[in-house]
Each structure stands twice: as C-alpha cells, then as structure tokens.
C-alpha cells in the first residue's frame, strides 16, 4: 500500500500549510485537559495559540497512559483525581476554537473513545470544532470504525510512526493518516530529554519517501534549540512535557512565555502565528 496522507478538508493540514507559506515549520503544543482545571486548559490553549502555536493538542487524562513519562503521568493522574470527566474535553476544544484560529486536535488513548462510542465521540468532537484525533495506542490495522467515523465527520486521524516501523508499515500508516503523520523521535515515552535523537531526521525522510506530505516530530522536544533543530527538516514540531511542566510550575503565563520562546526556533522567519 502506498499513497500520501489525505489533506482534503483537513484543519491540521491547513494549519501546517499556513506555517509553510510563511516559510517555517508549524509549532504544536500539548496540554492535558483538566490540569489543573478545565478552564485553565482553555486559557492555556488560547495562550499557546496567541504566542506562536499553530496547532493545539489536548490530551485526555487516562488511567493507563503507557506512552507517557512521569511528568505527563503526574498531571493526568492529578486531573482524574480532581474529577476530570472525558466529555469535558469537548468544552476545552470548543473554548479554544472559539477564541483562536489554531487547529485543535485531541490526543487520546483508545479506550475512552470506545467507551463513549467511536461514532458519538467523533460527532461531538466535530461539533466542538475539533480537527481530529492523535491516537498513540491505535494502529491503522485496528482502526476500521475510526476510519469510518473520521470520514463521516471530516476529522483528521493522526497515526504515529516510529524508528522501528518497517517500510511497509510506514506506507500503510501514511496512507491511513489525514492531516499529518506523527513521527516519534525516539524509542521511548514522553518526557524532556537533553538532546534530540538523530534517528528522527531519518524517520522523517523515510516517512516522506513512503508518501507523506506533512510529518511532525514529537517526544523529547523541550526547548527552542530542539525546535530549531527539528524545524530544519520536519513540517511541524510537537512539544508536550515542557509545556506541562510550565503550567504546573507557573500557570498560564508560563505556558505563554514558553510557547513564545519555542516559536523563536521556527526558522527561518520566526514569526508567531495568531
């Protein structure tokens, strides 16, 4: 199976293309919903969009986040302990999309979607103005009902590729994706690292060779230097743990400041989108 990822009607692809038109990579900022509160997530999402983030990724706190390191685990565990309910993610998405032009994606482990019902979940996400889903534990092989629902409601489906992915899997994952393809920079879980792995650049090249037009890199990206390094070869740079630490330690102002700093790495025309 070969072919490019789909982009028709894709909000995520459009946001990446706007950045590209400015001669730079896109910045994608992640925060989990409900940490420290639903309103804080909305405010922080808006702050990210106004300080240079082109796409906002809102995570659903989940009891068994196997792809997350300790910082994000601590945040999402706290959100659940504080009474976070999955349906409030739609309020977060609606709140951010109402105030900004950023594309808002939801990052979720798959069981909360199964529990709510894949079609229902997709419908409510679309109604809230969401762009689509990033699915860390759903591979295209198991995604038949999500393919159907995302087509029905015009949602992006961002699957992951990894340094361990075979050429065949790169091709089938690219073909199943819409919006962009998420390349994990390292074999590991989320968390700040001192250096960006050098396997990421090769993975981006391989994913492009498999047909992808938009490849964004995440995992271990935590400062403007990392952003600059990745922006040189990828279409977008995804930052998570560093922003979660920022909201933990300094609230929304710290998220705004860090986003501004990160966006300075989006060479060459380091302009913040709004």
């Amino acid at each position, binding site marked *: 199976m070969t072919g490019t990822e789909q982009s028709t009607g894709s909000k995520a692809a459009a946001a990446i293309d706007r950045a590209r038109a400015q001669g730079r990579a896109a910045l994608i900022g992640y925060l989990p919903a409900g940490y420290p509160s639903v309103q804080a997530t909305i405010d922080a999402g808006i702050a990210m969009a106004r300080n240079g983030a082109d796409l906002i990724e809102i995570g659903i706190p989940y009891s068994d986040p*196997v792809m997350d390191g300790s910082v994000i*685990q601590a945040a999402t565990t706290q959100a659940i302990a504080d009474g976070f309910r999955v349906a409030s993610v739609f309020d977060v998405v609606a709140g951010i999309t109402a105030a900004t032009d950023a594309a808002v994606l939801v990052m979720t482990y*798959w069981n909360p979607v199964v529990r709510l019902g894949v079609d229902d979940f997709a419908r409510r996400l679309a109604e809230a103005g969401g762009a689509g889903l990033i699915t860390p*534990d759903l*591979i295209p092989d198991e995604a038949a009902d999500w393919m159907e629902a995302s087509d029905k409601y015009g949602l992006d489906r961002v*699957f992951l590729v990894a340094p361990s992915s075979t050429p065949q899997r790169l091709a089938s994952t690219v073909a199943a994706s819409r919006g962009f393809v998420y390349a994990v920079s390292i074999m590991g879980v989320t968390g700040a690292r001192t250096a960006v792995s050098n396997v990421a650049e090769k993975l981006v090249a391989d994913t492009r060779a498999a047909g992808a037009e938009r490849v964004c890199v995440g995992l271990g990206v935590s400062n403007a230097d990392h952003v600059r390094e990745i922006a040189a070869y990828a279409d977008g740079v995804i930052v998570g743990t560093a922003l979660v630490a920022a909201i933990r330690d300094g609230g929304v102002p710290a998220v705004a400041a860090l986003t501004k700093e990160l966006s300075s790495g989006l060479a060459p025309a380091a302009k913040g989108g709004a």
Partner: protein
Amino acid sequence: MVDSPSVTSGTNDETAGPAEAFLEGKESLRHASGPYFGPYGGRWMPESLIAALDELEDTFEKAKADPEFIAQIADLNKNYSGRPSLLTEAKRFSQHAGGVRIFLKREDLNHTGSHKINNVLGQALLAKRMGKTRVIAETGAGQHGVASATAAALLGLECVVYMGAEDTRRQALNVARMKLLGAEVVPVTNGSQTLKDAINDALRDWVANVDTTHYLLGTAAGAHPFPAMVRYFHEVIGEEARAQVLEQTGKLPDAVCACIGGGSNAIGIFHGFLDDPSVKLYGFEAGGEGVESGRHAATITLGRPGVLHGARSYLMQDEDGQTVESHSISAGLDYPGVGPEHAYLADIGRVSYEPITDAEAMDAFRLLCRTEGIIPAIESSHALAGAIKVGQRMAAERGDVSDAVVIVNLSGRGDKDVATAAEWFDLLDDNSAEAEIGKEGEQL
C-alpha cells in the same frame, strides 16, 4: 460510576449455540491462533512496539515448527519443572462437594510452585532465539516475577521485574526471592501502584529497550501473539490432565474448574477439553468482598468490552473508560482485565464464568488443607470453592453423583499465602512480630 451488572456478558447463557456449531461443523475451538478470538484480541499497541510483536510472532511460529525447540521444551518440562504434574484424587475433600469425585491437577508440584514455570521457560527460550539478552516482567504477588527470575537465571538472561510499590512491601519475601535469583525488582509508584501499573511500566521499559529486551508477559492477555503464545506453553496442563483422567477413571470428566485472573492456567487446562462437548468448563473469577460491593476482580461477570494492555476484551472500567481498580485477597487474580480468548469463550457459552468471594475461597483453602494435607494457593482456592458449588449443584440435579468426575486445576501451592491465611483465620499470637506488623496496617 462503576458499571452496573451488564447483560452483555452472556456468562449465564445456557445456550451454547456458536460453540456447538463449531463442534457440529467438526471445527475445533482448540489451537485458536489469534490475533482475534471472535471480536476480541488484536494489537491495540503503540506503533513503536509493533515491529517487536511481529518479530515475536515470527519467532514463535518458527519455533513451534522446529523439532529442536519442541525437544528443548519437553526436556525442561520433564527434567527441570518436574512434569508431568500429578493428577491426585481428593477423596476426603470430595465429600464436601456433593459426593462427586474431585481430581486435582497438581501444578503446585512444579518447580517454583505453580503453573507459571511452563510459560516463562518457553518465552525465555524464545528471547534467546531472538538474540535478546534481557527480559522484563510484571508481577502482582510475585509468582510470575519469581518464575521469570528463575528462567532468566537458568538461561543466563538479565531480568528486571516491575512490581507495584504496595506489593513490594506486602510481599517482601518474594522480593528477596527474586533478588536471590539475580533479578532487579523495580517498585512501581505510578497510578494505583498495583499489577496493572506494573504492566504499564514494563511496557514503557519495553518501548525504550526493545532492541535488547523481551517482555515476558505472565498471562494469556495482552497484544497478539501473547494470548495464543502463553496458552501454547500451558497447553501441556490440559493434555496431561485429559490423558491422566482417562487412565485413572476410564472416561472424560463431567467438569473442569479453574481460577481466572488474566486466565493462563485456565486456558491451559481448558485447551485439553474444549472440543469435548460433554465436558463442562468453569472459570472462577475473584469476587472479592462480593460483586455487589464493587470491591472485586470479576471482569467477565461485571465488566464490559474495552481495550487495555494491547487487547480488546472484557474490562473493569467506569463510564469514561478509565480502568477501575480491582480487589481480591488473591494478588494473582487482582487484575481488572482478562485474556481475550476467555472473553470469546464466555460470549459463545463454551465456558461458564462465575465469581467466588474472598470468604468462599478462604473456606475452600482451609478445607483442602485439613482434608487432603495440601496447602493450595489462594488463587487456586477460588477454583476449589467453585468445584464445591459445581459438585453440589450436580448432586441436587442428578441425585447420585458418585460416578461424576470433576477436575480442579490446582494452579499453585500456598506456601506464599501462609501469612495472609494466618491473618484471615486469626492464627497469630498477639505478641508475634507478624501480628505487630499487622497492627501497623500492613497486609501480611
């Protein structure tokens, strides 16, 4: 917020339609290869691990067809684990089960004291075949951790065991046992600090170290090929039991009983009898303090389908799809998921799944000690308690059941559970060190 009893489980469905169709069509329920068991199973895993799962599946399929591998397993089973394990008639215990003849499949007599050794030896050999030098494992009470450390020591592999921090305190002796065997034990402080969180941390380790490391999953759950592969290494239980019961009684049993956590010992013994329609199969889940209490691990009885740890199966979850913490006096059954093949066998009605409470299990535990001189694992005591119910129901239906035969898979021995039992039955002197620890709120 926990789901109320669901009609979707089909556990009490007496009509075994699809199962009988299988049998009438001369199709076998045995050797189901995965990745799917009806709508269950699959690979709900991060892409980062898919290549490793593919490699494992490929290695496993080749090994199954390799006479050298088969001979290696047979040799280890015989000369290291001590197989075949006995089939022992429990005559005095049987008097409490309506008068049926109860036979115990003695997995408790295996090296390391439970059925777990069958699977760890097989997987550790596969790890060597893949050129991996390190194995990781999760453990609740420590049985699978001890078995994994044992296999790693035998085959010269590095071994790291993830164990909930709470469990490392409750099972300090098993932690010492693993360390004696050369394993590193990592206390897990994330989430609920129990078995499911130990699995999460093992998966995180695996993602980061997959080049050198095999994840030696301890039960017939998880992503394909684990459910079918773990069953394969435990099929010897059912095959031996079937031959032994035919030899000792001249006929097939009326029923086979096993306890279910993830379901590895059960699927191993059921395998031998799945295609014998006259043999009723019973899986006994941990009912904890009672299924109405909300504090239990009766996944099939009260759960609903979802995805966790790589497979679609029944799952204890709340209205948001968050995994609900399970509760059982038996750490080995204290898991909010269950293997996907069991979910399928429940749906088609081939196996009946029922909950057994902590109290029922402990009564059966004591009864076996006193009638047979065998101290069973508390896990296995759930199967014993279930067999008593099955025998009494058969007696109520048929009257004379003196020729009826019921096999119980005695999956492990209870030496590890002596402290828990001593506390449960209040056998400790108030001045003993153990009782002092108990007063401080520690489960022994």
